[in-house]
């Protein structure tokens, strides 16, 4: 997913430069302070690595993904390990910086002798890590970052994507809108920070509206700079255009901030926003969650039992996760758990930890996961996972004590309808 620019470093001008350079330089190293406990493949254990974003405003994504991996590995070990060996996890913070992610990964491969890598939050980091994994013949699993480029222009036989990609997600949202609007014309606005994930996600959404023949009129497109503190100008421009729907490509804390400010302008009274209103932002927003807004999510724990969230052990996993970490598993945790299950399946099938054999075994394989069977299709290693869409409820869910989605509104976008065909995916590879 997102590319996060770090704190601006274009700090020109004499004194300013002098004062600020140390901050900028220091910030990028904030987190190369890895929390890795060194170990190696020798002596009855193997090591897997996860370098991801564990600090800053997107820390929640990386940290909960890491929890998913750790729980998966704990469960593997509880059942006797893999091929008779215990599995260990090393982790490090990439500060959302490609260079740090790449150097973490190299260090894990060369020093910790990891036999598999679990991918980062940020798509720019993911694209830096993928070729390194291929270079050392180590399988790498992307379960948070979801750039389609990882499986097309950046494809390697060692990369696997367990998350709906940047084509699938906006297509699902557009499909929901197509269903809701029917043939009536709707007015649409978009809002996304001006960086790769934001712009490509918006472009994907517009493309999907066209593909689905939605009768829409684009009335306003806002691309504020990433980390803009004052979004009032963009909000006022959006409000002035009176869109009935606004597609917002923000997520996590940024989406929460937008919602807080937009609430103060009365934005949600006349406009339905379409955004990643998953459990975490809805929990953070509490009573200010905008009822009627359209949310999408990649693996919502509260839909356990529904298609794509109905594999063996899903409820046991959720309660185990809650007991261990004190919170329900995020989509990032769930998807990373299935990534670890996939790797374990590949190892068992190949009968070895050898990265090339494991990757070959996984290509085209159908794996039994807590989400049900997942196929990593052979042509581009994209998992056939659905995307979930629903309307933010005005009432508190009695089970989870959160304002989630209206149960009757839940729409599950089928993988085959939102995935690119193999031919389309291969065409993007060159």
């Amino acid at each position, binding site marked *: 997913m997102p590319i996060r620019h770090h*704190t*601006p470093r*274009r*700090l*020109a*001008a*004499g*004194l*300013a430069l002098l*004062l*600020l350079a*140390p*901050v*900028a330089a*220091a*910030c990028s190293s*904030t987190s190369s302070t890895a929390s890795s406990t060194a170990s190696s493949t020798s002596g009855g254990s193997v090591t897997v690595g996860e370098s991801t974003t564990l*600090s*800053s*405003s*997107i*820390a*929640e994504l990386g*940290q*909960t993904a890491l929890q998913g991996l750790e729980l998966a590995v704990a469960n593997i070990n509880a059942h006797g390990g893999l091929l008779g060996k215990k599995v260990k996890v090393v982790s490090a913070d990439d500060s959302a910086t490609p260079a740090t992610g790449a150097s973490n990964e190299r260090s894990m491969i060369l020093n910790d002798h990891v036999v598999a890598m679990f991918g980062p939050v940020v798509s720019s980091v993911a694209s830096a890590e993928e070729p390194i994994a291929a270079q050392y013949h180590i399988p790498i699993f992307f379960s948070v970052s979801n750039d389609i480029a990882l499986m097309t222009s950046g494809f390697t036989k060692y990369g696997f994507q367990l998350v709906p990609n940047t084509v699938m997600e906006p297509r699902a949202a557009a499909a929901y809108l197509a269903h809701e609007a029917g043939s009536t014309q709707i007015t649409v606005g978009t809002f996304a920070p*001006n960086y790769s994930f934001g712009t490509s996600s918006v472009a994907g959404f517009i493309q999907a509206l066209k593909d689905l023949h939605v009768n829409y009129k684009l009335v306003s497109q*806002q*691309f*504020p*700079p990433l*980390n*803009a*503190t*004052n979004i*009032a*100008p*963009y909000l*006022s*421009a959006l*409000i*002035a255009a009176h869109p009935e729907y606004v597609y917002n490509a923000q997520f*996590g*804390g*940024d989406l*929460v*901030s937008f919602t*807080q*400010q937009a609430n*103060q*302008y*009365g934005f949600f009274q006349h406009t339905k926003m379409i955004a990643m209103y998953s459990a*975490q*932002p809805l*929990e*953070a*927003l*509490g*009573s*200010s969650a905008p009822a009627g807004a359209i949310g999408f999510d990649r693996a919502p724990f509260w839909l356990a039992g529904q298609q794509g969230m109905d594999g063996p052990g899903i409820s046991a996993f959720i309660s185990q996760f809650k007991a261990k970490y004190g919170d329900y598993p995020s989509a990032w945790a769930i998807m990373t758990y299935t990534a670890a299950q996939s790797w374990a399946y590949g190892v068992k099938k190949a009968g070895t930890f050898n990265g090339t054999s494991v990757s070959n075994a996984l290509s085209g394989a159908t794996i039994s996961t807590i989400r049900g069977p997942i196929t990593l299709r052979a042509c581009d290693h994209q998992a056939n996972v659905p995307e979930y869409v629903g309307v933010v409820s005005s009432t508190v869910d009695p089970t989870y004590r959160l304002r989630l989605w209206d149960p009757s509104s839940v729409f599950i976008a089928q993988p085959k309808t939102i995935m690119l065909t193999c031919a389309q995916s291969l065409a993007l590879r060159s």
Partner: protein
Amino acid sequence: MARFLIEVIGTLSDAGSLFMVAAGLTLIFGAMRVINLAHGSLYMYGAFLMTTFVGASSGLRFWWSIALAAVIVAALGAVMELGIVRFLVGKEPLTQLVATFALFLILADTALHLWGNGARTVVAPSSVSGRFTIAGAVLPVYDLVIIGVAVAVGIGLWALLRHTSVGWRIRAAVDDPEVLESGGVNLRRLNLGVFAVGALLAGIAGAVVTPQVSVAPGMDESIIVTTLLVVVIGGLGSVTGTALAALVIGIADTVGTLVAPTWASTFMYLAVILVLVVRPWGLLGTPER
């Protein structure tokens, strides 16, 4: 016209919160000649403490939560001053930066442990969370709260510095600490007080902005860079300069957004360069002798 009003109020509210944070930093620099990179952490702690105190309720509790959060942040500042910062006075700038950056990292990790990695929000009391309409523009009432608090802080600082004996001593310390000390003033105690007041301002700002932002890790880092810009172009040590600079940065940001959205952050830095070319010591700073 409506659009213009929205921009003006948005800019003022933004500049207001920036001013509160930057005023604390510049005050500390003025008196102690220490650049505190952990100043943004104090702002973040103000916000996190606010989320803890307000809880799910809203109303009167909201207002005393701001005060309580700010006072605790001031106390935290005092501890920082006693434990670390006072030993940095008069040291090499690089030593100061490294030490306060270490503080920044420690405070960030501590916050992760105390408040977790998720975003939190605070709901303002209904009396100030609505909207008002003026000349066709629909504006958030809470923007006025931020502007009001910033103005009150500005006036309070001005009164403190200009009309009290403590303020006189602080100003004297900014000009020439040695002379002040030879005059029998306990400089250490003065510094402790100044640092706590600086922290208090950061704490107030952090607590006051909570209804408009998501309170999450990373707040410390994003605020400190802009704050340093404001302090530098305002003139290190000048509170009035800081107020002006906060406006300059806010306006540059808004104008940039309107004229060339994809270049908006460049506008901010252009403003900094322009100011520094004309006045290398900042808008209202004085050249170092």
